[in-house]
């Protein structure tokens, strides 16, 4: 594929991840990182770094659109996000010291449990 075709394909994929991110309240890295590693052959680290650069404008645009509509509270969210950024630095350091596959299994189990709980809550509501 030519460079221009890759650019267009990536932009089209970006529309999908951006829409999913805005709806689901996530950054979209969980969708972009596998795509960048599998489809473009980027290394895990480069894919994560590149995805973070995309997550930032996505979250800003979605947050401003939601603030206009009165959903959530951006001021409070930004403040606990700043604390979260400090947690991120600690997490990155811990990642170097802990076994990755164990972490992933524990995290996957956590997501499966809370995901099922939300589905059950939603169906019962």
């Amino acid at each position, binding site marked *: 594929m030519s460079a221009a075709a890759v650019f267009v394909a990536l932009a089209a994929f970006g529309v999908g991840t*951006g*829409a999913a991110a805005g709806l*689901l309240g*996530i950054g979209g890295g969980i969708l972009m990182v596998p795509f960048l590693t599998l489809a473009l052959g980027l290394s895990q680290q480069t894919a994560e770094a590149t995805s973070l650069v995309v997550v930032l404008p996505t979250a800003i645009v979605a947050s401003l659109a939601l603030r206009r509509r009165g959903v*959530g509270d951006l001021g409070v969210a930004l403040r606990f*996000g700043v604390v979260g*950024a*400090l947690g991120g630095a600690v*997490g990155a350091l811990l990642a170097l010291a802990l076994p990755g*596959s164990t972490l992933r299994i524990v995290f996957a189990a956590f997501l499966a449990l809370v995901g099922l709980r939300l589905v059950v809550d939603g169906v019962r509501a």
Partner: protein
Amino acid sequence: MTDRALRTTEAVGDRGTQRALDVQLVAIGVAGGLLSGLLGVGGGVVMVPLLVLWAGYGQRDAHAMSLGAIIPISVAGVLTFGVAGRVHWLDALALAVGAVAGARIGAGALARIDERVLKIAFGCFLVAVAATMGIRA
């Protein structure tokens, strides 16, 4: 929008705007950032369920709060990785051009969607992410 959806939005909206930064929200921010740094995934998949199941936010407000918190978290990540020279800038630009347009569509849908449908959809999304991670681990 249905009457029910309107009521839900107002009810949680009130709680959202009145709430100050407390220990619970700080803990959720740290959990989101920590797992983001640990596993290289966005903090959103952690923060949204904690905001709903633990902090008692409505599903819609929790998604908006998570997006807001992701802003400073990703700034820190971009600075760290950017300084390390790991970013593929052309790919990032292409994705961002699309993602910014998509984000408006997604946020518009989030503001309108029925909360119950949103909760079920997000729950299914988490289970799918868990399954994918389980297979890769």
